[in-house]
């Protein structure tokens, strides 16, 4: 059998091995360098044997069989489980939404500051107490002063709480604008990466690191909104938001957050090019919008409703009673016009003791008969505490306690959801990490392996070299 691969083919085999193992070492080095890079997926130099010789064909020589010709790195593989990555993106959306809810509800709990001795409950109880004292000393100016004072404190507490809630709505608006800018920025960057990836893919390359970077951006985006990712051509991806395209190949749409006159100046999110409302159903933005538009409005409305009930019922009883000047028909609280801001007239913001009463405490109608020592109307006012004023079934105190309980439940729910999501995300990251994570031990072991192979290849080359030396310089020189 003739050795047909040519005299120098051994050197070529050695050279190919040196080449391949150098490449492999480079890849290992790249992995080790990026062991802590966020979003990095480890890479593997895929080696396969080069085509054996001879190639089967009509004119091929008759030899003992296929002879191998060495090794080459066919491609550099990126180890990534896309399915797990996509699951992570989905769960990020849920986590984002509940995480914003958790933070916001905690904030609302702090605003209400219950249970405590400085919240609305305490102010209300002290107001009822002052009325009870007035019952016993209806003609005592000091007792009247205390009633007016405690009523003012109650009004202030209600107003202050409501104000903090509405201010929080404004703060959330700012948060919305910041996050919309982030979404826009991420969309632009992703489109940009799409562009670069397409160029490289078209010319046959595998832009592994660019894929990693893009995945990282999509993960951040999915935390903010419910980004719907689909594969495009040439390695690009498309992202849709609420059915409208956010990223299409190398083009990114932009969102706009504008104060909306229709919704009391609250910021609403629109697509910049069409002006249509953006539909966002998950992610941090959804969480913020939910809190701002639903939860906070619920608590503000509840306060308004309670305040209005207190004002109207107190005034009703107060008008039937007489002040020390012998006149009846007066209001205790300034009446609230509910036609201006239906249905409760922002009562918790407007509640205050009437100017008439504040200027002359004698006008507080403690008497039912007109006699100064008659405190029975004050008693009727005090008994409103136990009266089922809310829908005929609950007292004001019950209604408030129930409001606080529902706040507690909502907040607790958000915390539980966030905890659960974090556990789930941790698990998914573990699964992802099992595929993509760099294990330094592994890389070091590979390094040793490649190093040995490299050394052996170098040794092979030396051997071939010496053999050729014998052939070229020392063969056929007998008698020289």
């Amino acid at each position, binding site marked *: 059998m003739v050795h047909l691969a040519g005299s120098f083919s051994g050197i070529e085999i050695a050279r190919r091995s040196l080449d391949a193992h150098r490449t492999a070492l480079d890849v290992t080095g790249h992995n080790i360098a990026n*062991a802590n890079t966020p979003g990095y997926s480890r890479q593997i130099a895929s080696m396969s044997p080069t085509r054996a010789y001879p190639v089967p064909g009509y004119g091929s020589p008759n030899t003992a069989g296929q002879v191998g010709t060495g090794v080459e790195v066919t491609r550099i593989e990126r180890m990534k489980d896309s399915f797990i990555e996509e699951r992570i993106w989905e769960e990020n959306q849920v986590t984002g939404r509940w995480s914003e809810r958790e933070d916001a509800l*905690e904030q609302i*709990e*702090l605003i*209400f500051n*219950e*249970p405590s*001795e400085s919240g609305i*409950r*305490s102010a209300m*109880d*002290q107001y*009822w107490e002052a009325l*009870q*004292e007035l*019952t*016993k*000393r209806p*003609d*005592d100016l000091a007792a009247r002063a205390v009633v007016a004072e405690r009523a003012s404190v109650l009004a202030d507490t209600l107003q202050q709480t409501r104000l903090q809630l509405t201010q929080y709505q404004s703060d959330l608006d700012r948060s919305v604008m910041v996050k919309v800018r982030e979404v826009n920025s991420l969309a632009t960057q992703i489109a940009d990466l799409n562009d670069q990836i397409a160029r490289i893919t078209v010319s046959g390359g595998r832009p592994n690191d660019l894929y990693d970077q893009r995945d990282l951006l999509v993960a951040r985006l999915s935390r903010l909104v419910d980004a719907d990712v689909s594969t495009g051509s040439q390695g690009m991806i498309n992202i849709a938001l609420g059915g409208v395209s956010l990223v299409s190949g190398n083009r990114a749409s932009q969102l706009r957050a504008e104060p909306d006159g229709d919704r009391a100046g609250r910021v609403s999110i629109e697509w910049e090019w069409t002006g249509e409302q953006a539909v966002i159903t998950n992610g941090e933005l959804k969480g913020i919008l939910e809190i701002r538009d639903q939860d906070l409005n619920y608590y503000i409305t509840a306060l308004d409703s309670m305040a209005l009930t207190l004002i109207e019922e107190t005034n009703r009883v107060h008008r039937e009673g007489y002040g020390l000047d012998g006149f009846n028909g007066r209001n205790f609280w300034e009446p609230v016009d509910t036609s201006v801001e239906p249905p409760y007239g922002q009562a918790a913001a407007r509640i205050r003791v009437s100017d008439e009463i504040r200027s002359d405490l004698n006008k507080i109608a403690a*008497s039912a*008969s007109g*006699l*100064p*020592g*008659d*405190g029975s109307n004050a*008693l009727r006012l*005090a*008994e409103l*505490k*136990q009266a089922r004023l809310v829908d005929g079934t609950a007292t004001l*105190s*019950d209604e*408030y*306690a*129930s409001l*606080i*309980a*529902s*706040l*507690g*439940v909502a*907040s*607790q729910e958000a*915390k539980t959801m966030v905890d659960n999501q974090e556990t789930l995300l941790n698990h998914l*990251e*573990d*699964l992802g*990490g*099992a*595929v993509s*994570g*760099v*294990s*330094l*031990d592994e890389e*070091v*072991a590979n390094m*040793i392996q490649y190093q040995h192979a490299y050394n052996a290849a170098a040794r092979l080359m030396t051997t071939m070299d010496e053999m050729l030396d014998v052939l070229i310089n020392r063969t056929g020189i007998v008698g020289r």
Partner: protein
Amino acid sequence: MRVTNGTLVRHSVNNLNDSLERLDELNRRISTGKTISTPSDDPAGAATSLRLRSSLAEVQQYTRNVEDSISWLNATDSALGEATAVLQRARELAVQGANGTVPDDAREAIALEIDELIDHLVQVGNTFHDGRYLFGGQDTVTRPFQTTGSPAVTGVVYNGGTEPIVTEIGAGIRMEMDFSGDQVLVGSIETLIKLRDDLRAGNTAELSGTDLGALEDALDTVLYYRAEAGAKINRLERTLSRFQDLELNVNTLISENEDVDMAKAIMDLKTEENIYRAALSSSARIIQPSLLDFLK
């Protein structure tokens, strides 16, 4: 499952953080002594807390109302005691004066003393206690008893209110705190006036007949109201005692609902501290070594 260094570190950090979260919560509980700091710690407990604190405020207010009522009724009882003494003296004098053998000037002396007794009784009727007239009903600013006639009193007019002062001593439970003068004392005063007039006139038949009878009736009336006052005071004192128990119970409930079991919390803290230290030690051991340490 393939575990990388990154995974190890992430797990360690997460677990350490979880432990710190628990330590933080235990620290908060021990520092504040409260299990419920926000409604989300225990929503039902928070609602209960609001209700209990509201109840406590109510009980304390009713207690004050009852104490005020007792004070008022005690003053009433004292005044009625004085009135009783006056009427008893009047009866002694009436018996003396009814005796036909008493000379005119002696009867005149008795009549003068009756004048004094009338003034005294009017004064009792006009007792001013704690900023109000004791027997004026709801008209607390007008002097209830106004006498007519000078220098000798010939009649008395009651100018006070007729409706009693009412206080709440429990949820929806009202109690009348006073008696108005027209029921209690007008009759007595008028009886004394007639007695004095009869003494001056020497109507011994009247004196020993209708006048003495009227005096007995007057004494009975005052005694009746004194007994009423006494009965109300008894009821109020029992109520007060009940409220004291109730206040204690509500405070106990509040404590059970909101307060931390210190002993348990401290034990939990020590346990969690140990867990944290163990986690730190364990994490340190596993995240440091790698294959590089062992290769030549």
